[in-house]
């Protein structure tokens, strides 16, 4: 699978864009709406005109039409052909490339199996759910065995469970195929889960390219910090290995046990939406559970941000508005705090 280089690309909001995506890399582009993420994918796919140079595997593709670039593209709107059934949609890329019928049928069957859409083969796009459509569109874009895969917000507009399920399937498929992938999302959590490297785009510029961990701990500009969303960063005064894979850290009045395979932890970052709040004592062992006091309640668009003090340590929790309404929280009132471990980030000492 090839690498991709963009040199001084200009198109609409994107000006002087330079970027290198390595061979077999899952490269995630995050950024706010209108940052130029989709434009970037369109430039690589060649479905729009542009200035500058795009090189795939060291060769300039600027003069190549989209069909000669070897790029699979999952469009944000999916663009499943409404007049073709699921299997016809998937077969399209093979038919137009003159793939032998027997070979094509095998390929279609294997993709249908891989995407678990056997039961949908004869349906038309309007008869599919959002998640099913995404899987069909993904199978279609993979059918001609592209060298590069461009995915434009593949899990957007899906409910949380379906998005999570599809994301896991995607990770599995992409790792199995070892295909160079550009993955656009505005969901930072999704980016961290899937990316080898993350690029942050704002106003047509690439502000930062880094590993997910560096992206989180070392934002290189104010807009990246803002996008990351100010996590709770706790400086650890003590770090002690309990047993293989478990470390106990102390930060102020908070003592936590974390799953960690290294030697010691200097700093822990906890995303606000991984801080769980409850007005009643949650069941289970008292590990990583604290009692704090609500300091401030800040309603946001669809979530509520709650400032909580645990001793002298201040934490922010962010919970969906619906979840907030189910518990009774008031400023100055005691609250139970549970820190979820799954998505913590660490800086080693």
């Amino acid at each position, binding site marked *: 699978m090839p690498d991709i280089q963009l040199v001084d690309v200009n198109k609409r909001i994107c000006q002087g864009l330079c970027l290198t995506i390595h061979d077999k890399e899952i490269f995630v582009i995050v950024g706010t709406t209108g940052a130029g993420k989709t434009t970037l994918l*369109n430039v690589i*796919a*060649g*479905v729009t005109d542009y200035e500058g140079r795009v090189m795939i595997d060291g060769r300039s593709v600027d003069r190549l*039409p*989209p*069909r000669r*670039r070897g*790029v*699979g*593209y999952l*469009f944000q*709107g999916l*663009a499943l*052909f*409404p*007049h073709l059934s699921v299997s016809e949609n998937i077969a*399209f*890329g093979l038919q*137009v*490339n003159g793939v032998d019928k027997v070979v094509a049928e095998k390929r279609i069957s294997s993709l249908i199996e891989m995407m678990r859409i056997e039961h949908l083969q004869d349906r*038309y*796009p*309007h008869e599919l759910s959002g998640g099913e459509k995404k899987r069909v569109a993904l199978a*279609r*874009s993979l*059918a*001609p065995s592209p060298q590069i895969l461009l995915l434009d917000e593949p899990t957007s507009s899906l409910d949380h469970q379906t998005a999570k399920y599809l994301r896991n399937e995607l990770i599995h498929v992409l790792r199995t195929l070892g295909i160079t992938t550009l993955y656009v999302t505005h969901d930072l959590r999704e980016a961290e889960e899937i990316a080898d490297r993350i690029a942050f785009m704002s106003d047509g510029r690439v502000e930062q390219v880094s590993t997910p961990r560096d992206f989180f701990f070392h934002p290189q500009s104010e807009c990246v910090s803002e996008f990351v969303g100010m996590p709770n960063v706790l400086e650890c005064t003590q770090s002690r290995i309990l047993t293989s894979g478990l470390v106990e850290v102390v930060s102020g009045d908070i003592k936590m046990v974390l799953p960690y395979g290294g030697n010691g932890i200097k700093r822990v970052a906890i995303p606000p939406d991984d801080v769980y709040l409850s007005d009643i004592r949650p069941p289970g062992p008292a590990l990583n559970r604290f009692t704090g006091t609500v300091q401030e309640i800040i309603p946001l668009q669809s979530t509520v941000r709650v400032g909580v003090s645990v001793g002298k340590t201040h934490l922010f929790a962010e919970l969906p508005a619906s979840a907030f309404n189910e518990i009774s929280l008031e400023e100055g009132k005691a609250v139970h705090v549970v820190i979820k471990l799954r998505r913590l980030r660490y800086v080693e000492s």
Partner: protein
Amino acid sequence: MKKKTSLDAVWGIFPVLVFIAAWEIVGRFHLLPGRLLFPPFSAVIEEFYHLTANGVLGKNFLSSLVRVLIGLLSGSAAGIFVGVLMGWRNVAHKALNPIISLLYPIPALGWLPLLMLWIGINEMLPITIIFICSFFPVVYNTITGIKNVDRRYIQAAETLGASNMRILFKIVIPLALPNIFTGLRLEAGMSWRVLIAAEMVAIPTGIGALLIQAESLVRVDIIIVCLIVLSVMCLSFEKLFALAERKMVGKWSSHA
């Protein structure tokens, strides 16, 4: 969707039966002045039988049908071809649109005097009129259909490896079919209306000619027979294209 019941069918046909009954009563009991000018329904049906039995209706109907079929099919085919060309290639649109825009507003029958001089009074005259009548609306509906195909489908097909011709024939034209069929459906009925007018004015055979002969003989019953045939044919042609549309695009078109 609510299933059609036999009661619905009765309600559909009931007003027609009432209309026929009223017609029969008014005609039979001379409720309108001029007995000969308002024959009862039964007299019209009797005349329909005579005209069919002696072959007059069949011969004229066949003449009209052949003209409509040739004119409509060739006009529609040419309209689709030019419409696809203009919708798909901007240069063709720029070159042809000014000419077509100028010719389109001329009513099909407006061409009649010119065509009578150019072509003469022969079979080609009504066929050409129907050709013109169906060509322009089909051109415009096809252009609209082609241009309205979402650009994303074309881009998706491009990235999947399709050439321009494949995209046109496999994606764009099939997706433009609902619009194309709208034009065809309208023109299917319209071509009969235009034909009758042309036959009344200039052609000695066909349903239109039979109509005008009946008028000169003050045979209202024959006139009504011809009008009924005309009505049934307009409706049948429209329904035929609607059926073809349902067969070809019904599975997906309302959801595209």
